[in-house]
């Protein structure tokens, strides 16, 4: 099967990818992660074996870019009382405290909670994204949600 035109992927999934990144790294770093995600996807696209589960494939790349970005930010970080994104872009992400709590979850749980509960991704697709079994994907979503609830309330 021929993969769809890359622009069709961008049209279909750019909102999910962008929101995932804003939730994962905050509105300031999301822009660069968004660019890096799509550039990496475009680079790998001709070698893609299967055109199934393209959304999961894209979000997996986005997750890697989010992790890279957080590591880079941690290396650059100077001690501070306020979150830089909160100061730079007030309310750009609606519920900054909720997303900040989500950002403190381990990567896998964070992606599971976002994809399952925010964009309603089926467990089969989530398993693809997390590269694990459906049962494990379900566990990640549940554990993440439980932890988030404890943190946030």
């Amino acid at each position: 099967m021929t993969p769809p035109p890359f622009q069709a992927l961008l049209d279909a999934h750019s909102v999910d990818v962008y929101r995932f990144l804003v939730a994962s790294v905050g509105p300031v770093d999301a822009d660069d992660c968004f660019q890096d995600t799509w550039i990496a996807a475009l680079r790998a696209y001709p070698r893609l074996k299967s055109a199934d589960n393209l959304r999961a494939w894209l979000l997996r790349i986005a997750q890697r870019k989010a992790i890279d970005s957080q590591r880079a930010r941690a290396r650059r970080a100077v001690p501070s009382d306020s979150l830089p994104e909160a100061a730079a872009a007030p309310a750009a992400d609606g519920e900054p405290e909720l997303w900040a709590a989500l950002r403190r979850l381990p990567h896998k749980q964070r992606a599971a909670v976002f994809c399952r509960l925010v964009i309603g991704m089926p467990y089969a697709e989530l398993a693809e994204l997390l590269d694990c079994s459906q049962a494990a994907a379900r566990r990640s979503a549940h554990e993440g949600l439980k932890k988030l609830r404890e943190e946030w309330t």
Partner: protein
Amino acid sequence: MTDMQTALRGAAGTLPGPPPELERRLARRATEEGLVDVAYAAVDSPVGRLTVAGTKRGLVLVGYGPHEPLVERLAERLSPRVLEAPARLDDARRELDEYFEGRRRDFELPLDWSLARGFSQRVLRATAAIPFGEVSTYAGVAARAGSPRAVRAAGNALGSNPLPVVVPCHRVLRTGGGLGGYTGGLDKKEYLLRLEGVLL
């Protein structure tokens, strides 16, 4: 858990989508890094909205009608790395605008003939040599393509011209003066021939 679900869904509704500027920057960066095999853009014209597409070699497609099937064809025939990148097609858009405004008689764009092969390509190259304001016949271009008797095949090649307007298949008429056919619709062929002063 539903309280948390409701909170997450509600908060997600307030998350912004990607700003349009971000996607434009992405198209620019992808182009700079050489990752866009086929770029396309829309051009408004008196004969309707056109989709124009280019590769690194040159203009590869001018298409009438909805852009989705055209873009899918580009992905299948050329490369799936197809991106809307209007800046890459500035020259094509400018030359087409000038042509439709009556300020341009010849296109100077480099062309990529990938979507036409063999005899079809020879017919189209012969067609590209017909000057502005002049006409030829299906038999005439068949002969110039090296097969004087392949008149029907020449008609088919022109009917599937991937570069209408720029490769002027509208300048090819039936022997005896009938207009013949046109992929985009005969009204468009008439419009173009009127623009060039062939029809009154």
